[in-house]
């Protein structure tokens, strides 16, 4: 078991390394010269050349890559081409906001979808079930940015209940969290329902009923706990979608997280910060996958390594 975790951690580092390489070369394929962009229109050629030399952009790509690797292992991610401050700073500053939003959204989604899915399975093929399934299918079709804008339209503009941008209090957290949760909700309800239905067909459930356990009892003590396995798996698989959704939500609500930072710096062609953000995304994702895998082995006693 311990060996498995160690192996997974090593694999994670390998993937992160390859990801780092991928990011580096991706941003070097770009048309457009960051030195020119920074210097601005009409800047003298000597200034642009000096800037390029300062950032090492005149060296061959391989040399730049080697330099970058050495810097990364030292913990130096370069300076932002715009603010000239360390690129890692805005990322670290905004990361907690993204984490807050992501986990709040995840928590809300699981808290709503789990009982709904179990309920749908309990009353399978009734009106309630069909309503829940239809609602989840509809939710799957709603684009995150549209949901966010509709939320702003209704709750901020029409009814003036909640703020529509920025962060700073619980009030600011409500709308973005709901939007992030909505992206995930539909999928989770569906999977929970289908898994609970699978469980209900199993022999041990029949045994439990024949022992005299009530329907609620069976549901709570047996089916709900075993459906947790697939919920964890699905949450793990949907983490990517969650983080992608966070990017959109942060942009809609001007939430100061790394998602909105990515959009901003992509537009500015601020390579150093973009690389940082992408690496942080990959790292976050890798860590979450690792945690999901390990959690899975705890929840499902049949899996042993």
């Amino acid at each position, binding site marked *: 078991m311990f060996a498995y975790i160690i192996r997974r951690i090593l694999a994670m580092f390998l*993937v*992160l390394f*390859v*990801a780092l390489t*991928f*990011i580096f070369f*991706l*941003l070097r*394929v*770009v*048309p457009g010269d960051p030195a020119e962009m920074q210097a601005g229109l009409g800047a003298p050629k000597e200034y642009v050349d000096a800037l390029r030399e300062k950032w090492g952009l005149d060296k061959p790509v391989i040399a730049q890559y080697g330099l970058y690797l050495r810097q990364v292992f030292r913990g130096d991610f370069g300076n932002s081409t715009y603010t000239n401050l360390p690129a890692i700073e805005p990322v670290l500053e905004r990361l907690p906001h993204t984490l807050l939003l992501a986990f709040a959204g995840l928590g809300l989604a699981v808290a709503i979808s789990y009982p709904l899915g179990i309920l749908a399975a309990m009353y399978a093929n009734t009106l309630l079930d069909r309503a829940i399934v239809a609602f989840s*299918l*509809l939710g*799957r*079709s*709603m*684009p*995150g*940015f*549209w949901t966010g*804008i*509709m939320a*702003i*339209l209704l709750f901020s*503009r029409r009814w003036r209940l909640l703020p529509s941008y920025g962060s700073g209090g619980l009030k600011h957290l409500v709308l973005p969290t709901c939007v992030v949760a909505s992206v995930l909700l539909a999928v989770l309800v569906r999977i929970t329902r289908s898994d609970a239905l699978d469980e209900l067909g199993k022999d041990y459930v029949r045994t439990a009923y024949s022992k005299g356990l009530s329907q609620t009892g069976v549901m709570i003590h047996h089916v709900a706990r075993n459906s947790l396995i697939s919920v964890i798996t699905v949450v793990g698989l949907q*983490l*990517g*979608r*969650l*983080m*992608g*959704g966070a*990017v*959109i939500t942060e*942009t809609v609500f001007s939430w100061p997280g790394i998602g909105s930072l*990515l*959009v901003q710096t*992509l*537009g500015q062609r601020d390579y150093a910060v*973009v690389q940082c953000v*992408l690496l942080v*995304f*990959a790292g976050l*994702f*890798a860590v979450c996958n690792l945690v999901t895998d390990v959690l899975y082995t705890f929840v499902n006693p049949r899996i042993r390594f």
Partner: protein
Amino acid sequence: MRRHTRSRVRKRTRFLLSSIPLLLFVVLGAVGPMIGAYHPEDVSVHDRLVPPLGRMADGSVAWFGTDSLGRPLLPQVIEGARLSLTVAISTVCLASLVGLVAGLVAGYFGGVADMIIMRLVDVQLAFPALVIAMSIAAVLRPSIITVIAAISISMWASFSRVVRANVLRIREEVFVEAARATGCPNLRILRAHVTPFVISPLLVVASTALGVAIMSEASLSFLGLGVPRPAASWGSIVSGGRSYLVNGWWISTIPGIVMMACVFSAAIFGDSLRDLLDPTSK
């Protein structure tokens, strides 16, 4: 026997019925712009922000209202349907093709090829799909080709995984072994024996991916990384309407509703296709 046939007929009818909404959208995208063309240069100050079903200066009805430049929204939404479906279908086809080839090579030949392809897939799956699409779309020149490329690249990995898993399964079958024993060249085995069994699962994943592709394209356009204006994409129309939420709510609302309907159609199409191809479902 009769129960089996009844089930097949039921699934087939359900499939045909479920494909109608999506087909309607395809027809809308194909034929619509010819009937109600979108003229982005047709700016009209008089017709700014006319609400849905209101009348424009020339007397015609603006069914979906007009935008901040006085252009009617309905032709833009129809044009958006064409754009979104073109991008989505192209993307899914391209990603399926790449995923199919990669999965076949990785699964059938194994060894180094498998290792390389699977590591590529792992790296790809280490990032959220939207983030990959965003990064690629941002570094290349904005155009419809860029968007298709960006979304395809963010998608192929999951396709190749599905294909590879199925190839690994089929590879061990007796008929494949028999083909190899009779001296059948690898390429032919792949084409004639392995691929037919891999197509079904791939189709299922592809049809689900259609809805995802539509939403990805809209998200990219919303972020300003998609097909540039004045080309009308649902995402960019919604994004443009953000400044007019109070006195022009329809600009952001209506394209979203239409988009939701489109993705919903794709979703039920995908679900019914999956049920059709799955011998174990009722």
